[in-house]
Structures are given as C-alpha cells and as structure tokens.
C-alpha cells in the first residue's frame, strides 16, 4: 500500500499506464471487491468513515454529500454521477496531472462512486482545452467497455453504467456544480437555486452527484485499502493525501502528492526549492485565485482545511500562488478581479455590475489615478459583493477574498500608489505585466 496512492502510477516522462498495466498494480481490484462483496450502503459507510473531504475547493465531506441521494426505489429513472474536470480556477493545475497521467484511476473511482449511489450514467465534464486528457480518458473508457468494467451487467452483477466524456465550451462558471449541470443540459451555465439540491433534483431533474476529479480518484484507494488506512495518511486532522502545488517565482514550481497537513513552508522551501534568487516571498494565495492571502507569519501552518480556515483563508484547491517582493500586490489583485469580472455569468447584479466596478477602482489605483476615497469604496464592495447570500453563487464572494485580504496585508502598497500617483513596482517589474 503506497503512502502516496494518487500518484503511484504516475510518471510524467512516459505515457499513462494502459488497462493491463493498471490492473497489474492492483487496478480494478476495488471494483471486483465492491461490486461482489460490498453493498452500496457498505461503500457509503467506508467513505463516511474515511472522512474524505471534497478536493474541488469547498472541502465538503464526500460521504455526507452522497448520503442525501435517495436510495429507495428509484428504478424508474436515471441517477447521474458527474466528474467535475473543469479546472479553471486560476492557479490550479492538479486535475490535469491526474487525468493525463493515470486516467484509469479516475475511471475506477467513478465506477465505485456510481455503485455507491447506484448511478447508471456518468459524465466527465472536462474543460475544452484539456484535449489530451479527454482523449486518454475516452481510450481508457473504451478499454473498460471491452473488458466489461463499463456497460451492461458489469462483472455479472447486474449493475449497469455508461460513461461519457463531455468536453466543455469554456467559461469558469461551469465549474460551479449547479452551473455545470445547466451546461451539461445544453443551456447557458447559470447556477441554480438550492434547494432543491442536486442530490435530489440535478441533471434533467434526477438525483445527481458532482465531485471533483481528485475526490473521485481517492475513492479508488479508500475502497481498496479501507477508511482506517486512509485516515492514517494525514498528518493532522484531515485524512488522506492531497495534490499540492506551488506556482510563481519559486525555483521549482510544480505539483506533488503529499500528506494532508503538510506545512506551507515545507511546500515552498523543500518541494518548490524556495524563492528564485533575488526574490523574497511577500504573500501567497493558498488554494487558488479565490482564496484569501496569507503572509510570512502563516508559513508554519499545516495545509489542513480547518487550520487554513482559522487563519482567515481557505485550503481551496491546494495549489498556491506566490506573491514575490518585486510584483505589485495591487496589480495582482487587479488581475484576479478582472478574471472574475470577465467570468461572471451575469445572472445577478452585485456580481455582474459590482465586479467590473471593483476592477475599475483597482485599475485607477494601480495606474496612479486613485484617490483616498477609493479605499472606502473597495471596503464597501467587499462588504456588499463579498457577503455570502448577497449573490446567487459563490463566484463573487470568492472574487472578493483576495481583495479584502490584500487590503489588510498590503495596505501600505495601496496607500503609496494613491499618495505617489504611481506604481512603485513599475520600474522593476511592470505592474501591468509582471517581469
């Protein structure tokens, strides 16, 4: 049993393992075990006991999420399992690795998940740009069909499962799970009101579970090796391992599987090789573009959901973005907000009209046109746009997280921009475009 299960088959230098090689390394043993020896209720209990939390950003307990799927007589219609492979949160590059380097691991996890909730149709909703991953997944699905792991009467158990790869047509909002469902139905990707929750009324009004790629990959190993083993992998309160990443001006940016609870410092200094020569760390977004900044004083914190939460940020996707001392914090936040403003689905006013306004205020400050009152405007925008419940989905509050934390940690940068009517980073590192 590998202590780094998710990447045990992964070698970026070669093609991913095919079905035969995957099976040789215990692949699909969990499918044999679950379908023949475990009831869906047994599997659900195992997932609950494992304390697995969703790896898509919100960290919701997977077992609990699944427990809301109706399991009594629903034979008159379909149930759906959807893999969220949209991966569009800026700074996130982990699901690509899992899909490009070990597609069978994801498919095995999806078969097990579908068995647990008794779904008969599964979709992999993948962003358009991941052509290679989509092709490899389709090839792996075809191999599974030929071998009888997918299709009708899987392993003679009477369980049927069809699996489709759906390649998206763009837009970050498709990653939000109810917007994703709208998009899979062929519509504009507007999020939906909850309740009803997708577990009850999701895709085409039927019970639907949406999970992140990495979450589903973990299912393979939890069923194979047990909940107790999975819990023992984490260093702190959270169980399992995680794909952590570091990008920005570090010596060795990348993505590594490490135990949950690995300290931030270890990630940056050991795995990412520390800062590039001539650059110092000023801050970081721990889990993608929509998480609050952390700074130097947080470096010894464990990358655990609750630890990072208590520090005022979110673990998010676990792939961090480093702000160095030669990059303008105001410019960085402007880039982030411009992304979110562009990607607003337009459904609700605070987000559709508010985010472009925030981007405008940040641009004014960044380009030396800012006034003191702009800081008050920004604070109000954080208050109104950033509050959960003021908008129809979490995109807009997520967008405001780096804004409010940047104003807290990099206040003097905002002030100098306004006072000097210029960006002091522009000389060394154009704030409108990095180095």
């Amino acid at each position, binding site marked *: 049993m590998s202590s780094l299960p998710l990447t045990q088959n992964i070698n970026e230098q070669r093609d991913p393992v095919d079905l035969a090689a995957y099976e040789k390394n215990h692949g699909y043993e969990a499918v044999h075990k679950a379908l023949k020896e475990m009831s869906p209720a047994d599997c659900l209990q195992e997932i609950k006991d494992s304390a697995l939390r969703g790896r898509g950003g919100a960290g919701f307990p997977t077992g609990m999420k699944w427990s809301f799927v109706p399991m009594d007589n629903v034979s008159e219609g379909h149930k759906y399992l959807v893999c969220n492979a949209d*991966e*569009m*949160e*800026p*700074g*996130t*590059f982990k*699901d*690509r690795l899992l899909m*490009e380097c070990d597609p069978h691991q994801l498919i095995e996890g999806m078969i097990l998940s579908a068995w647990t909730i008794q779904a008969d149709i599964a979709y992999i909703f993948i*962003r*358009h*740009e*991941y*052509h*290679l991953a989509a*092709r490899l997944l389709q090839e792996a699905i075809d191999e599974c069909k030929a071998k009888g792991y997918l299709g009708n009467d899987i392993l003679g158990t009477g369980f049927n499962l*069809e699996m*489709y790869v*759906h390649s*998206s*047509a*763009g*837009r970050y909002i498709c990653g939000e799970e109810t917007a994703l469902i709208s*998009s899979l*139905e*062929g*519509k*504009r*990707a507007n999020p939906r009101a909850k309740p009803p929750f997708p577990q009850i009324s999701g895709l*085409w009004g039927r019970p639907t579970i949406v999970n992140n790629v990495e979450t589903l990959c973990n299912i393979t190993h939890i069923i194979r090796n047990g909940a107790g083993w999975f819990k023992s992998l984490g260093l702190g309160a959270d169980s399992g391992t995680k794909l952590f*990443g*570091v*990008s*920005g*001006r570090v010596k060795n*940016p*990348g*993505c590594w599987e490490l135990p949950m609870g690995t300290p931030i410092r270890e990630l940056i200094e050991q795995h990412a090789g520390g800062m590039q020569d001539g650059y110092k760390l000023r801050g970081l*977004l721990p889990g993608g*573009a929509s998480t609050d900044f952390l700074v130097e004083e947080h470096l010894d914190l464990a990358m655990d959901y609750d630890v990072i939460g208590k520090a005022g940020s979110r673990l998010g996707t676990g*792939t961090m*973005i*480093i*702000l*160095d001392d030669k*990059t303008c914090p105001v*410019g*960085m936040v402007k*880039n*982030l907000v411009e*992304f979110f403003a*562009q*990607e607003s*689905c337009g459904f609700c006013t605070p987000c559709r009209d508010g985010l472009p306004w925030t981007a405008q205020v940040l641009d004014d400050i960044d380009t030396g046109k800012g006034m003191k009152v702009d800081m008050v405007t920004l604070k109000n925008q954080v208050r109104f746009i950033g509050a959960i419940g003021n908008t129809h989905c979490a995109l807009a509050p997520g967008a405001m997280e780096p804004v409010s934390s940047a104003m807290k940690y990099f206040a003097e940068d905002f002030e100098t921009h306004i006072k000097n009517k210029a960006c002091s980073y522009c000389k060394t590192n*154009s704030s*409108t*475009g*990095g*180095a």
Partner: protein
Amino acid sequence: MMNSKTDNPLQATSVLTPAELAEIDKEISHAPYRAAVAIDALKIVQKHHRWVSDESLNALADYLGMSPAELDGIATFYNLIYRRPVGEEVISLCDSVTCWIMGYNKLQQHIIKRLDVGLGETTDDDRYTFLPAPCLGACDRAPVMMVGNELHQNLDEAKIDQILKVKSSTSDVNNNGRQE
C-alpha cells in the same frame, strides 16, 4: 425521443453536412431530448468550419427544435464557440494570475508585433487568430499559451518566435509542448 432521420428539416440537411449530422445524431442518441445536445452540436459544427456562421446556427436550431435566438443565446455565452470567423489556428495566451506574475504581458506585446495582429484579430494570411485565455491549468510552467490544440509552456520571446516560425513554414509538429 424523436427519430432524427424523419425529422430532418430540409433546411438543416442542406446546410449541415452528412458528416456533421452523423456526429450530432450520435450525441442525440444518448440525450433525453434534442436541444440537450446544443453545445455539443455547436462544437461539432465549429470543428468542421472553424466557426459557427448565422447560416449554420439557423440550420442547427431548426434541427434541434429550438429558436435561433435561443441557440444563439447559448452560443454567445460560451467563449470557445466562435460566432465570427477565426484563422486556421487560434493562439490562446494565458492572461491569468501566475502567467501575469511571470510576465505574459511582454509576450502579448511580442506576438502583437511579430504577427501584426491585435487581440481578437486574425492575421492577413488567415493563419492565426490571437485571443486571450483564462488560466490554462499549467501555472507551474507559466507563461503558457495554446496554439490550436497544443500547449506551449515556459515561454519567452525566442520560444514564441520558434513556435510561430515552425508553424508557419512547415506543417511539422514541434516538440515544445505536450501534444494532442
């Protein structure tokens, strides 16, 4: 489910080619109703024509049993459905946060000069359309861009020159990125 063969309206079958119709029908075969494949169908049409013209859109709407306005509302929501002509290949340069930190802006200016093409425009020889792209999920190799279906990473000016030169003088696949 409606039978796709007998419901083929004349207009649709005269604009949409048999190859496109066959691919669209395959999608319809596992969808609960025809309009459910709207996005897949738009992508199929685009795959064959590089973009989705009004003529194609109208025919497709007809074929899927939707109004053209409804289908256009969907088409224009998604940034990777092109409702205007594009060149042979689309250059998508990531402009999100890590690529910004790593200096995509300079590269954007470089491409604009090198190809004499603005953002959203197509080169005179119809070879490239230059578009900005949100994070391409390769931030550890920033700055990155895609040319067609190929990802190119750890970019600098010299590398971009090499990629665009190779691409415009021969049809050889270069080895700069993972390929598809």
